[in-house]
């Protein structure tokens, strides 16, 4: 071994002895410290997907609308009229736990860059947040700072945050989840890919100067926390949305005018990953001269410059001879710019400091040939064991149960969160946060885009396979309620330590379940992110796959609300009420149990329900459509009442289920539709065509929430509890 690479140093770089041997094989010699650093970040879980690659093959990634599947900065889906949407979701869990404000903010910044590097203008953000127990001392602080970080970054750069979800569970006490989604819009002929080409073309550095921020961030994101890592205090990345705005405009301008060949964000593993990945896609090499990299600190070593994760930086390949034009555009936007290298024929990443070569590594060794493991899987003891209904006590006062549920932070109004987000900037937002799906208009067309992000930690814990199917179905149902056709999915897979066979089993099951549901419903997965090692002191999070689903609306005029619109309207509840209520919020909150068998998922029935929703929307009968999810029928019905303060009387319920099961069970195929009195027959014939049953019906109006003989409450009481529930965390 060389002086540089003792076994201790190798271990500090997160590389196993076998991986080190592989490096030596690739190079035909021992690496020096700079090269070891390159391998360490590129072979980290975060960059190489070494534990997940093998399993991700199970996801369908093709479809007739797919213009770009996984493997690029983001996925692209055709939406007709020469337009396409570009989207991706990504985690920023570890940085957000250490420094919640900056961690969350730079998470948003990172995902925005992934979108605009493809030539698209970002038009909407979503986020999925999971925090620890509501009564954990750190939860209020983390929640407040994460939301502030997301809001400030999005608001400053002028991209609306149009929706999201917030969950609480003790399993996230030591590992919160912050997943950020962004969607951009691009014309087909303006799509840009990150493929380095043209021997001799200059490699140009743009954006903020390089500091020692987040060195080994990618390796950190691939490591479990130990208690005390709050004290570890690595160089945290600080976001600068104003610089990012300049970067966005400058990049789009450069692409517009065809002055550049390729571009990639310097995200995790900074200069190293952006250069080697662009070279790898183009089958060429890149030579970098680090002495040309703009720096904001003195005395930085080549190792530090290569591995820095300073934010708001891009690496691009320009046409030879047009360097000056490129710099002019960038300087106009006030950005630092420097030629830092060139494309070379030999497929290596060659790193120089002035004249001196400080490292040289074959590009494929860093990218395609990175290790991939089929790690051991082992099923844990079954968690989804059924519990007989008789063992669950029947509540005496069902109204009280509803009040408790609707006032719990998970189900209460999230207005505290989304009032901090600008959700109308750019003036495309038709439906903002708090509905089933957010809806955006596409100016100049009749079309709209619908967006939703979903997860279900209880279901995924109890049965990861079935749970993942439910999440896909939930997303698709949310889109159905606004009459959108689902066109693509992006996923963020948050799991514990993949070296534990139980975690790997959860991962495999989740991916398989997701794959089955996506195939059955015909939706491709076009981008995503895997976040492993969400673990503190040996205790991992429950499996938490998060799915963002994007839908296309052909005619925006027809989009119904999710809330009741008019007194005197009729309401009908359609679908199937199933027996099982394992994993429901009702069981978790009122009976303190995360047990039970989760409801089965019949994908054919889901398709019928979607078909029905779409026809109801198209027909124009419906004044509102809302699907039933967490909290069951009773909660969903209350949600319909809140926006416009319209009461409801459900007078006909057809069921032989126990009332609490019917009210709070989370059957996956129920929708609530309100419509003009007199349209009943037309609506029922649509239902009949799609083989959908009517479960209950009633009338809108008044100021009470009344459900059969089971619940009768003043609506104002429910509104109050629902409105305040979330803020009681603080």
């Amino acid at each position: 071994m060389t002086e540089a690479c003792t076994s201790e140093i190798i271990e500090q770089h997160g590389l196993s002895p076998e991986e080190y041997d592989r490096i030596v094989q690739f190079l035909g010699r021992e690496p020096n410290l700079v090269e070891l650093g390159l391998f360490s970040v590129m072979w980290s879980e975060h960059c190489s997907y070494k534990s997940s690659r093998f399993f991700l093959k199970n996801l369908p990634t093709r479809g007739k609308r797919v213009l770009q599947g996984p493997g690029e900065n983001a996925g692209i889906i055709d939406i007709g009229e020469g337009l396409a949407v570009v989207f991706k979701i990504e985690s920023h869990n570890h940085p957000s736990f250490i420094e919640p404000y900056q961690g969350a903010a730079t998470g948003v910044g990172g995902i925005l860059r992934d979108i605009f590097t493809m030539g698209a203008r970002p038009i909407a953000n979503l986020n999925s947040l999971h925090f620890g127990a509501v009564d954990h001392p750190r939860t209020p602080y983390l929640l407040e700072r994460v939301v502030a970080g997301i809001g400030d970054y999005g608001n400053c750069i002028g991209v609306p945050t149009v929706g999201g979800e917030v969950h609480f569970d003790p399993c996230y006490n030591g590992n919160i989840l912050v997943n950020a989604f962004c969607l951009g819009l691009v014309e087909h002929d303006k799509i840009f890919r990150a493929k380095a080409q043209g021997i001799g073309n200059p490699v140009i550095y743009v954006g903020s100067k390089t500091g020692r921020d987040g060195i080994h961030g990618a390796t950190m994101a691939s490591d479990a926390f130990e208690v005390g890592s709050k004290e570890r205090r690595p160089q945290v990345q600080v976001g600068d949305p104003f610089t990012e705005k300049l970067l966005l405009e400058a990049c789009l301008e450069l692409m517009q005018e065809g002055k550049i060949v390729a571009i990639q964000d310097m995200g995790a593993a900074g200069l190293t990953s952006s250069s080697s990945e662009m070279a790898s896609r183009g089958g060429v090499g890149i030579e970098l001269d680090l002495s040309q990299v703009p720096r904001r600190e003195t005395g930085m070593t080549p190792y530090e410059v290569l591995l820095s994760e300073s934010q708001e930086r891009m690496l691009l390949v320009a046409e030879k001879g047009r360097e000056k034009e490129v710099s002019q555009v960038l300087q106009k936007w006030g950005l630092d710019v420097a030629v830092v290298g060139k494309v070379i024929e030999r497929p290596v990443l060659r790193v120089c400091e002035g004249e001196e070569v400080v490292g040289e590594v074959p590009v494929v060794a860093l990218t395609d040939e990175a290790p991939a493991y089929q790690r051991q899987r082992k099923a844990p003891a079954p968690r989804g064991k059924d519990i007989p209904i008789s063992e669950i006590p029947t509540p005496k006062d069902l109204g009280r149960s509803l009040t408790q549920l609707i006032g719990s932070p998970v189900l209460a109004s999230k207005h505290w969160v989304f009032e901090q987000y600008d959700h109308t900037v750019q003036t495309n937002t038709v439906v903002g946060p708090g509905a089933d799906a957010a809806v955006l208009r596409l100016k100049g067309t009749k079309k709209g885009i619908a967006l939703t992000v979903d997860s279900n930690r209880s279901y995924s814990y109890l049965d990861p396979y079935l749970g993942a199917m439910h999440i896909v179905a939930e997303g698709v149902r949310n889109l159905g309620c606004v009459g959108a056709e689902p066109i693509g999915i992006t996923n963020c897979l948050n799991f514990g330590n993949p070296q534990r066979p139980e975690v790997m089993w959860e991962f495999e099951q989740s991916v398989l379940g997701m794959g089955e549901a996506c195939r059955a419903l015909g939706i491709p997965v076009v981008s995503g992110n895997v976040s492993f090692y969400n673990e503190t002191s040996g205790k991992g999070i429950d499996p938490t796959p998060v799915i963002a689903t994007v839908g296309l609306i052909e005619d925006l005029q027809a989009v119904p609300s999710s809330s009741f619109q008019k007194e005197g309207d009729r309401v009908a509840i359609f679908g199937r009420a199933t027996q099982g209520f394992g994993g429901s919020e009702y069981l978790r909150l009122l009976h303190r149990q995360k047990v039970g068998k989760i409801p089965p998922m019949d994908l054919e029935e889901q398709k019928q329900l979607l078909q029905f929703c779409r026809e109801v929307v198209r027909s124009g009968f419906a004044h509102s459509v809302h699907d039933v999810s967490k909290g069951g029928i009773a909660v969903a019905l209350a949600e319909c009442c809140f926006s416009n303060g319209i009461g409801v009387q459900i007078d006909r319920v057809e069921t032989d289920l126990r009332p609490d099961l019917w009210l709070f069970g989370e059957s996956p195929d129920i929708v609530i539709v309100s419509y003009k009195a007199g349209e009943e027959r037309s609506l029922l014939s649509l239902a009949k065509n799609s083989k959908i049953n009517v479960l209950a019906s009633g009338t809108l109006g008044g100021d009470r929430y009344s459900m059969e003989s089971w619940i009768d409450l003043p609506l104002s009481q429910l509104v109050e509890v629902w409105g305040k529930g979330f803020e009681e965390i603080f």
Partner: protein
Amino acid sequence: MTKAKIYVMLKEGVLDPQGGVIQRSLASLSFKGVAKVRQGKVFEILLETHDRREAERQVQEMCRQLLVNPVIERYDFVIEGTP
């Protein structure tokens, strides 16, 4: 009463976008030769105690719990005695 003055600065190497804006503004106002600007903050806190050591203890604790974000900031303070 005892007066404490607490100086909080971003740690060396942490990006300071605000400082950067000030630096550029100075340049645009024709102040030549400004090599770097870092912006921090100062707190003045009046404490009821007369005991210097107790004041130090309290200030340390305030910094740890609220005034300073130890992940990205460093701090220093002086106890100035009775004003």
